């Protein structure tokens, strides 16, 4: 029998606020343990939590960017459970009145992954298990989170990866989170079940907790899919449970018996008053949401003539998209701008983080100037490429490296002269070419380019050289 995967995501995203959700301690990452704490975030009795206005704003923006309905009235609830990462023995979260509801993320195959809700809550502390004891650091305790809950609409690992990437891109674009999975500022719980292809019923699901890498999410889902199919095929039944993914072995193993919503004994937090958001405030926040990556891709393809792939590569990072747009200002063919970015500039940005930061010396205006000189026929492509390297190394404008006389190019006589010289000085290459080795002509062209310090038109030079040899 053929089976299909059914998956849903609960994604926790740390908000980029300066302070925690209920107190004024900093949210900065990487400090010494328990140095970003106060009586509120270590849960001492008698303290009064006070909601961070910016956390609410960010959550609403996240909702707006994912097509959610924003609730005018919302509230905070206590979710009770006993575990050392939670000093109050309850987490302040939202239960039946979340801030955002009924959104969706559209995938490239056209399918919509529905979002059930986005709510705000506090992060828990960090536990380190060593020497048989548990060491607790509450720096992360009380950092504002949004939890984005999808419906079980995902049908494959590819869809899952795209879903997570899209969320990540959107949240970064609107500036509500840096979504660094390796630092834990974005974490996913994945619900997986299987069912015979064609069936519309949902199978029993398992939940794989706390995944912090897109690669691992893919592997864990594949493993879990195969495990469940095997179980059913061999006459067994999938048991509803919470699993941990073990990346070293690429397996999943049970964590703890999942508590029911009932067991959390949710009730309204009496310390925190109602959150009321007016339509005007929602409109105000809507105005702050920039053009989103998928909207940019569409515009780049339809209006600027980029390929789908290049457009996606540029639009993926907000800094790069903004650089590209500024550098394309007044340019006839923005595709040459994107070629320089993807071809040459990307080579200098090794990691995702490098691309995210896009810390390069050249300004968009400088690249724009270079491309305009090419379009005006003043600089040949080869010279432009080597010049861009120098510009990127130094941050200086094109005019520092290319003089007026360089821009004038070579006249026909000079070019013919150089081609002749190339043929005379490289008998071996000429011979190779005559024997049918087409590539040999490239080294002759290279000679011309070198002699002319990049001023020559490579295509014209090749034509002339072939004529000389042939004649």
């Amino acid at each position, binding site marked *: 029998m053929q089976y299909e995967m059914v998956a849903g995501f609960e994604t926790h995203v740390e908000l980029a*606020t*300066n*302070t925690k959700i209920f107190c*004024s*301690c*900093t949210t900065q990452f990487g400090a*010494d*343990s*328990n*140095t*970003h*704490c*106060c*009586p509120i975030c*270590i849960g*001492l009795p008698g303290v009064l939590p*006070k*909601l*961070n*206005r*910016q*956390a*609410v704003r960010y959550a609403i923006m996240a909702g707006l960017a994912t097509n959610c309905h924003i609730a005018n*009235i919302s*509230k905070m609830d206590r979710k*009770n*459970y*006993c575990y*050392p990462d939670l000093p109050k*023995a309850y987490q302040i979260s939202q239960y039946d*009145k979340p801030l955002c509801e009924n959104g969706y993320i559209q995938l490239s195959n056209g399918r919509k992954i529905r979002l059930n809700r986005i709510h705000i809550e506090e992060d828990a502390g960090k536990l*380190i*298990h060593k020497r*048989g*004891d*548990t*060491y*607790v*650091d*509450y720096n992360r305790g009380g950092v504002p989170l949004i939890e984005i809950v999808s419906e079980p609409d995902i049908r494959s690992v590819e869809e899952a990866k795209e879903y997570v990437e899209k969320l990540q891109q959107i949240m970064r674009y609107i500036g509500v989170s840096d979504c660094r999975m390796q630092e834990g500022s974005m974490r996913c719980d994945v619900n997986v079940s299987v069912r015979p292809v064609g069936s519309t019923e949902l199978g029993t699901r398992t939940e794989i907790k706390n995944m912090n890498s897109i690669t691992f999410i893919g592997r864990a889902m594949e493993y879990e899919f195969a495990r469940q199919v095997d179980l059913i095929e061999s006459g067994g039944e999938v048991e509803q449970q919470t699993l941990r993914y073990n990346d070293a072995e690429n397996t999943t193993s049970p964590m703890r018996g999942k*508590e029911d919503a009932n*067991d959390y*004994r949710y009730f*309204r937090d009496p310390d*925190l*008053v*109602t*959150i*009321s958001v007016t339509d005007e405030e929602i409109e105000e926040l809507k105005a702050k949401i920039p053009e989103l990556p998928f909207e940019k891709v569409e515009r780049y393809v339809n209006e600027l003539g980029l390929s789908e792939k290049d457009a996606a590569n540029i639009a993926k990072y907000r800094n790069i998209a903004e650089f590209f747009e500024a550098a394309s200002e007044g340019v006839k063919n923005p595709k040459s701008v994107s070629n320089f970015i993807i071809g040459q500039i990307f080579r200098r940005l090794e990691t995702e983080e490098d691309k995210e930061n896009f810390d390069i010396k050249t300004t968009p205006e400088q690249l724009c100037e270079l491309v305009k000189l090419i379009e005006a026929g003043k600089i040949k492509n080869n010279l432009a490429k080597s010049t861009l390297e120098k510009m990127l190394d130094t941050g200086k404008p094109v005019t520092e490296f290319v003089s007026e006389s360089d821009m004038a190019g070579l006249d026909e006589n000079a070019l013919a002269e150089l081609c002749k010289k190339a043929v005379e000085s490289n008998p071996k290459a000429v011979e190779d070419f005559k024997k049918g080795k087409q590539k040999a002509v490239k080294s002759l062209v290279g000679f011309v380019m070198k002699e002319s310090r990049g001023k020559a038109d490579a295509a014209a030079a090749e034509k002339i050289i072939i004529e000389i040899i042939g004649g």
Partner: protein
Amino acid sequence: MVTREDVINIARLSKLYIAEEDLDEMTKAMADIVKFADTINNASEDGVEFDNINNLSNAFREDEVVPSYDRDEILSNANDTDEGHFLVRKRV
């Protein structure tokens, strides 16, 4: 209805130990408490905005950092600490 099993479950969730011989009394006490709380269901809901009885809303804080407490002070009430951490005995 509150059953003995409910009381056992709630005690488990709260990491409380209740002796077998106290269970009946606890169950009865719990039932009385729930019954008392149920009184609220008799209240009229007309004109009440879900559960916002005091009509307060939006007590917000601005997102400005205030220095945190000294770590020694933060850890001063802990039963046990090590290397700047709260120390919790391994849970079985």
